């Protein structure tokens, strides 16, 4: 019985992140449009886009290899698996021990690795520029993220996300300098990883500084749909991650009743919505950076992560 329930919750979680992801993207777009005094498309527009793309035929370049056709599904699968392991409305997921935080980051790295390869498959200059810059950004964002994880792991004594989240909601953690640094670093990494302004612009297609969109330029139809879906999932993942670590209130404990799970679900939606609004406000209030300013931005995140970890190494109470 317990197993069935745990399976049910895990399955529900996988479905929730999948169904919520396009809505979140649409919501952020809507808020951004309203902030710039535009009407904006409906919040469910991303669903319509996905369905339309899925129904269209896929146009492949003449020299596209098998890798080009496999990558969208690999990227989608790895991102979905990673997103399904981050607690959203309830803790104690059935498969949470499959991959800890380090492995979740590496799963995202797996998706990025293949997406960058796909960008180079056709042999166009746009694909190459996107892949090359994406890997440059990742080479700084990933260590910053890992150092943040180190900070969290040192506070919680574990890299298991469920354990970290459970500990963070207990009163014994309190306010800590290193956690503050980790939060700031994590937000900076999340902005870079999700290709948001000021690092990258998810709305442009033809600009020299673009990164992510240049990499997927040759994709169309169902392949593009999978990649767009994966990007939305990644945004959900990062918002859930920040939510479950730094604002863990409301997450239902394992074995809780139905009411707790409902509260957890409401709290989760509220957290994600607040995160989306903050993201939209941040994005509209800041200008896009030149691409070679990005290393400075991420270098700051790296240093914050390192400082937080260092503080925890020398003193367990900071």
């Amino acid at each position: 019985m317990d197993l069935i329930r745990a399976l049910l919750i895990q399955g529900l979680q996988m479905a929730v992140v999948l169904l919520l992801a396009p809505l979140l993207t649409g919501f952020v777009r809507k808020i951004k449009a309203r902030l710039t005094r535009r009407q904006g498309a409906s919040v469910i527009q991303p669903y319509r886009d996905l369905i339309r793309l899925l129904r269209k035929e896929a146009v492949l370049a003449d020299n596209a290899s098998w890798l080009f056709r496999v990558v969208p599904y690999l990227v989608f699968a790895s991102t979905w698996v990673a997103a399904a392991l981050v607690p959203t409305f309830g803790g104690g997921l059935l498969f949470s021990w499959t991959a800890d935080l380090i492995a979740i980051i590496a799963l995202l790295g797996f998706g990025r690795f293949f997406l960058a390869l796909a960008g180079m498959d056709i042999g166009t200059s746009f694909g190459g520029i996107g892949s090359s810059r994406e890997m440059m950004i990742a080479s700084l964002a990933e260590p910053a993220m890992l150092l943040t994880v180190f900070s969290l792991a040192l506070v919680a004594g574990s890299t298991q996300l469920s354990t970290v989240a459970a500990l963070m909601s207990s009163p014994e953690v309190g306010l800590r300098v290193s956690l503050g640094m980790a939060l700031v670093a994590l937000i900076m990494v999340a902005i870079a990883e999700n290709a948001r302004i000021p690092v990258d612009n998810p709305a442009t297609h033809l600009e020299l500084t673009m990164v992510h969109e240049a990499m997927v330029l040759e994709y169309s139809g169902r392949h593009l749909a999978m990649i767009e879906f994966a990007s939305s999932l990644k945004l959900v993942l990062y918002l859930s991650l920040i939510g479950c670590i730094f604002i863990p209130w409301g997450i239902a404990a394992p074995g809780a009743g139905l009411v707790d799970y409902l509260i957890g679900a409401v709290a989760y939606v509220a957290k994600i919505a607040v995160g989306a609004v903050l993201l939209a406000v941040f994005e509209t209030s800041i200008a896009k950076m030149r691409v070679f300013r990005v290393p400075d931005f991420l270098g700051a995140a790296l240093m914050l992560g390192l400082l937080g970890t260092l503080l925890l190494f020398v003193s367990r109470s900071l």
Partner: protein
Amino acid sequence: MATIDVSFFLWGVAGLLIVAVAAVALGRSAAASNLVYTATFVLSAAMLVMLGLHLISAPGTVLKTTLPIGLPWIGASFKLDSLSALFLGVVNFGGAMASLYGLGYGRHEEAPHRVLPFFAAFLACMNLVVLADDAFAFLLSWEFMSLASWALVVSHHRSQASLRAGFIYLVMASFGTLSLLLAFGLLAGPAGGYGFDTIRDMPHGPMVVAIVFVLMLLGAGSKAGLVPLHVWLPLAHPAAPSHVSALMSGVMTKVAIYGFIRVVFDLLGEPAWWSSAVLIMLGGITAALGILYALMETDLKRLLACSTIENIGVIFVSLGLALAFRSGGMGLAAALAFTAALFHILNHSVFKSLLFFGAGAVINATGERDMEKLGGLIHRMPYTSFAFLIGCVAISALPPLNGFVSEWLTFQAILQSPELPQWGLKIIVPAVGGLLALSAALAAACFVRAFGITFLGRARSDVAAKAGEVDRFSLLAMFVLAALCLAAGILPGFVIDGLAPVTHAFVGGSLPSQAHLPWLTIAPIAETRSSYNGLLVFLFIAIAGWGAAFAVHNFASRRVRRSAAWDCGFPDPRPQTQYSASSFAQPVRRVFGSLVFRARETVDMPPPGDLRAARLTIEVRDLAWDWIYTPISVGIAFAAVRLNRLQFLTIRQYLSLVFLALVTLLLVLALWT
């Protein structure tokens, strides 16, 4: 059951040496290549099988034997304990795979008589190094290993680059052996006990321990490629034929690490805490610099050689952590770090061999090592490219393959280190953790570049456009290695359990047994602390990806139309318009280059009206050359010119010089005592 003893492996080594002599006799004959590689394959595989039988039938037993050769009255002693067994496995597995690959690849060798004898001898010497149980046997086989590999490096002796690589390698190898010689001299002490058992039982003063540690770092570190002793490695490893490069990068560097572990963890007693700090720091710097060097290379084999430097750095960080934990009395953490090091040693020997084999296949098919002239090979060489891709994912430390597991174990070991008592380590370890994370991310960039430029895109030269798939032996060797990458990645628990006897014997602790955990999860310390399940990650990705593809193809659309590339509406058919290896590395060069390489870009733009082509020149310098090796070589040249005068003295002057030297030496001796 028949007992297996060391003499069996020594017979195997003798067999390899006989093959080497026979190869000389066979010379250039057509059958030589097939015969020699078959023989080395059979011998290596037989030793591997016997090793497996030994480990199954009598686990934990230590085998010893002494041969009446070598120094008079002492002989040469050999021993097989858990550490030797592990490295014997690495050597012979690498040897068997290289021989299998050589069966196909070796046919294209234009001078087989320069490769075959040394190949067999090289394998034999590496086997002897890991079996040796006294300083004399160890040093002798170490030196022969260096010489055999040197001969292989210069086997293409008409190329100036090979000769230069060979010269630098020879100098560095002699320097390394000299350091080892001095280290063992100090360890043996004035009594001159050269047996490892005698050295182990003898107490060593702190000064001796410190000096031996530094000498081992120089001796084994120069062979393994520790920065700043790495300069020979990217020159020498690629100069040899590809299967030998695989052996040098994948196996010989591991033999060097074996020597380091044997002396520092086993014979030396307890080094001071700063030695672990030195190891951790050097390892971190080596990892980050190695992968940055690799990102700057456009030669596929040199890129792989540079990435070896990175992996050696990762291994040394784990070894340093193991040393620190051991002296801090933290048995479990020490076992974790040591397991991470050994796991990475196994992993690297597998995927680096695989990648070098892939590079060799590319060279066979195109005759080209320069990535700027390759491209589009995924269409022409589908199997090679698939195996190479597996190797790239594995070396980039991505789940669910094996590279990630050892990287993950290393990070878990780093997270144990706030408990260490020394303040110096508390500050160094998190910084090195950041460096390791950086090098892992850069490794992913490096191998996206290596695979993307070589195998994807459009062919950048005619040879690349006309390449064909390689022979079946080469493919078989590559696919066996690729399968191992996957197997060790999804079933890491068995590997960790297999390493437990070694960690128990050398750091005094072992991880809890992993293979019985539900779902084959690994949880090195405790499940609430950290756990990873490669099998489930693999299955989840496979099911989610396949399910998504199935659903999309059946319920949405499965139509495909081929057309010209879109490229924002302006596709240019010339392959030169693609991103090249140098342009891919440009952002990284710009971020790290000015600091690490003094990279400079000069643009020579002709004035309007001038029809000359514009040129972009990139200058990347290796600071180790500029700061260390160039001053040394200038100093040696200067001294040589000065001493040259001594060549033209009269006989009387020579006699008086000899007399003076004698008097000085006697005076020193008199004052010393």
